[in-house]
């Protein structure tokens, strides 16, 4: 996907018809759009998302989602059907030129309905045609799950480096790497019209007993599906709460009076997250230790009495046996003692030797005593070592727990402080934040309860399955129906394992790519990224310790992650898959405020790698983020192909905090203009 042109017509503050042509130059691959805050950067970003995927996928910070038509047009409208907003995106996909156009009329806007997408395709021979299904066609090129990774606001992007985004990340990886085909196949095979057909056939032909078992199994399968849906919904609620909390945090940080408190809270929350993770890791270590060596610790109390008993026997000379029975038997057989006395039957000496047989042991007895000694010693050794290790882990765990509790107390104190501020807005934001956090905790508990039920249901399904299989089918039709169902279940099961394996196999390649990008940004700090099987990213310092990730580091990681994913999808054909013919796909990146919460040093580091993140990069940057280090760094890359700026028109000039002009390469550009009505103009810098 290579972006060619974006045309806006009466879309929010963009009055009339205006366009941006993106740089498609291989070397100068960056298009910069300069815009002050509030001029329309977020609107531009959302124009992409709206035309591709509609209202549902607009970003959370895009307010008044139901008012897309320019206000002046709405005010002056005589006919709701002739008043509209339109976005047209032209892009190349392989050898095809695609135009996606979406229009919303005032009538549709008033009835809160979404508009229709219209797609036209021009092939390499110049033939123009329409796809069978416009929406599906666009989704096959750029699925909604990855659009948010490619068209994003840099200030909110840090979430991709957070654990709760692991599902989104893994889904995006699957989509971008073509594994969606496997997921679609699984979904279709599990569908009521596919698997359900075979279940019905079996039900219709099986014995009463088998039918009952099948019904029960299908019910349990439905239960499992329902629980998974409940988990997904709960996770979506958490995601939405997190996004709102982040937005509240940004607002608090922008408020000068409470900015330092909010900043301190963000640091403390990062510390709490780190300590929380450590506590979990210690729990896992304890579990592992108990699994592997727990028998020795528990067994020690059982072994100790036996050990004392053995010691006593040893003291009494009962073990090991002082004399071997084989030796005595040989003497009795030869009827001669080693002292040369006769041991004839009936003699007193023979009776004495015979009495020794009662305390004599055989060689096996002595070997067993030796083995028992060694085993007891071995178990005691393991028990001592494991106890010592357990003690150490518990000390570490307690230390982390103490820090965690202390940090949580400090966070609560800050929250109390913010909640008592005179400023109404701050108080309201803090109240809302507290409410969201408490709902979030309740939802997490619910998720935990749902997750606990899954293994119980799965074990019941397994049991029912084996009972179903154990019942012989009398009729040929039943046998065939059973065979078909077994085949489809076998396929679904294997597909799921393959999908998990292929997703996991991408982790090493992704880690290498992320570290390649990361080394260019925070190399001086010697950080490396590690991705675990849940796609959660850890940053490790040179000493091997986990680095607490603040918002800026998470933003950096997320950018590196997106760039890495785009790199991997480009060279898809070189990575292992069982799916034939997966070719590489090129994706662009469109970023609103790419430097988010980064400090100046980090902004420079990121500016260096921005052109490398994708074949085509569109960056919308405000003056405060651009002028200074970023300007020079980006200039040095010689990658800027096209440049635009947004000019804000209004009946009065805005307050002093904005720059009225902007100077690029010695030329001054006017950012504000007095006009008869409020709107934004897109102008190219040539």
């Amino acid at each position, binding site marked *: 996907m290579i972006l060619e042109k974006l045309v806006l017509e009466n879309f929010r503050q963009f009055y009339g018809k205006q366009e941006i042509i993106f740089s498609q130059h291989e070397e100068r691959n960056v298009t910069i759009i300069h815009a002050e805050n509030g001029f329309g950067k977020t609107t531009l970003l959302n124009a992409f998302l709206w035309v591709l995927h509609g209202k549902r996928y607009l970003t959370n910070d895009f307010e008044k989602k139901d008012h897309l038509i320019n206000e002046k047009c709405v005010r002056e409208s005589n006919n709701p059907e002739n008043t509209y907003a339109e976005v047209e995106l032209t892009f190349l996909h392989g050898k095809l030129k695609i135009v996606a156009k979406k229009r919303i009329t005032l009538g549709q806007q008033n009835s809160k309905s979404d508009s229709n997408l219209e797609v036209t395709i021009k092939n390499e021979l110049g033939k123009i045609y329409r796809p069978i299904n416009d929406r599906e066609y666009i989704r096959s090129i750029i699925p909604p799950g990855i659009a948010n990774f490619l068209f994003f606001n840099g200030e909110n992007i840090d979430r991709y480096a957070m654990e709760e985004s692991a599902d989104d990340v893994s889904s995006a990886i699957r989509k971008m790497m073509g594994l969606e*085909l496997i997921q679609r196949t699984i979904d279709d*095979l599990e569908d009521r019209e596919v698997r359900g057909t075979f279940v019905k056939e079996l039900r219709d032909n099986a014995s009463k007993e088998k039918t009952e078992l099948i019904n029960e199994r299908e019910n349990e399968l439905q239960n499992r599906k329902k629980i998974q849906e409940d988990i997904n919904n709960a996770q979506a609620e958490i995601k939405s709460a997190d996004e709102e909390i982040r937005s509240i945090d940004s607002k608090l940080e922008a408020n000068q009076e409470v900015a330092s408190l909010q900043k301190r809270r963000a640091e403390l929350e990062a510390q709490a997250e780190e300590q929380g993770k450590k506590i979990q890791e210690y729990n896992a270590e304890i579990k592992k230790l108990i699994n592997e060596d727990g028998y020795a610790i528990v067994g020690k109390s059982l072994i100790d009495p036996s050990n004392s008993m053995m010691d006593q026997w040893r003291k009494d000379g009962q073990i090991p046996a002082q004399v071997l029975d084989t030796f005595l038997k040989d003497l009795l057989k030869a009827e001669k003692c080693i002292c040369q006395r006769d041991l004839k039957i009936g003699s007193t000496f023979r009776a004495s030797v015979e009495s020794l047989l009662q305390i004599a042991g055989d060689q096996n007895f002595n070997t067993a005593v030796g083995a028992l000694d060694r085993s007891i010693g071995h178990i005691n050794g393991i028990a001592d070592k494991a106890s010592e290790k357990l003690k150490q882990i518990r000390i570490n765990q307690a230390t982390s727990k103490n820090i965690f509790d202390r940090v949580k107390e400090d966070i609560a104190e800050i929250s109390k402080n913010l909640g008592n501020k005179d400023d109404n807005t701050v108080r309201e934001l803090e109240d809302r934040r507290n409410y969201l956090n408490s709902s979030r905790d309740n939802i997490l508990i619910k998720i935990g309860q749902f997750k606990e039920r899954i293994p119980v249901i799965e074990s019941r399904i397994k049991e029912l399955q084996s009972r179903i299989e154990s019942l012989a089918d009398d009729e040929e039709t039943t046998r065939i129906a059973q065979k*078909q169902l077994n085949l489809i279940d*076998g*396929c679904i099961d294997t597909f799921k394992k393959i999908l998990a*394996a292929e997703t*996991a196999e991408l982790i090493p390649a992704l880690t290498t790519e992320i570290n390649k990008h990361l080394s260019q940004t925070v190399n001086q700090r010697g950080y490396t990224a590690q991705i675990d099987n849940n796609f959660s990213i850890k940053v490790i310092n040179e000493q091997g310790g986990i680095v607490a990730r603040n918002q800026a580091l998470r933003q950096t990681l997320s950018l590196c992650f997106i760039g890495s994913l785009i790199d991997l999808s480009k060279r898809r054909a*070189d990575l292992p898959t069982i799916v034939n*013919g997966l070719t590489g796909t090129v994706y662009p990146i469109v970023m609103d405020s790419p430097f988010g919460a980064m400090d100046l040093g980090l902004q420079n580091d990121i500016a260096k790698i921005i052109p490398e993140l994708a074949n085509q990069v569109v960056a919308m940057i405000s003056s405060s983020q651009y002028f200074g280090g970023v300007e020079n760094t980006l200039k040095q890359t010689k990658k800027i192909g096209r440049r635009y700026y947004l000019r804000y028109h209004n009946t009065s000039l805005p307050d002093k905090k904005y720059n009225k002009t902007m100077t690029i390469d010695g030329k001054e550009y006017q950012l504000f203009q007095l006009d008869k009505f409020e709107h934004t103009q897109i102008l190219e810098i040539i």
Partner: protein
Amino acid sequence: MPEQTSSTKKELSESMKIFLKADPIIQDAIKKCLDEERHVMNMMNRPEIKKKLVQTIKNITKKD
């Protein structure tokens, strides 16, 4: 049988091992279902796919 792509041909990938360990009839079904899905994805005619998958499974069990 699906193929692995260039750079990993020497060593089997984990997913390929899973595929090869599966019953040959499952391997056959997996390959055919994937082909059907890919074909339908390119043609953008998704409602037909479910019928085709049912037929694919039926044909394979009939043959078996």
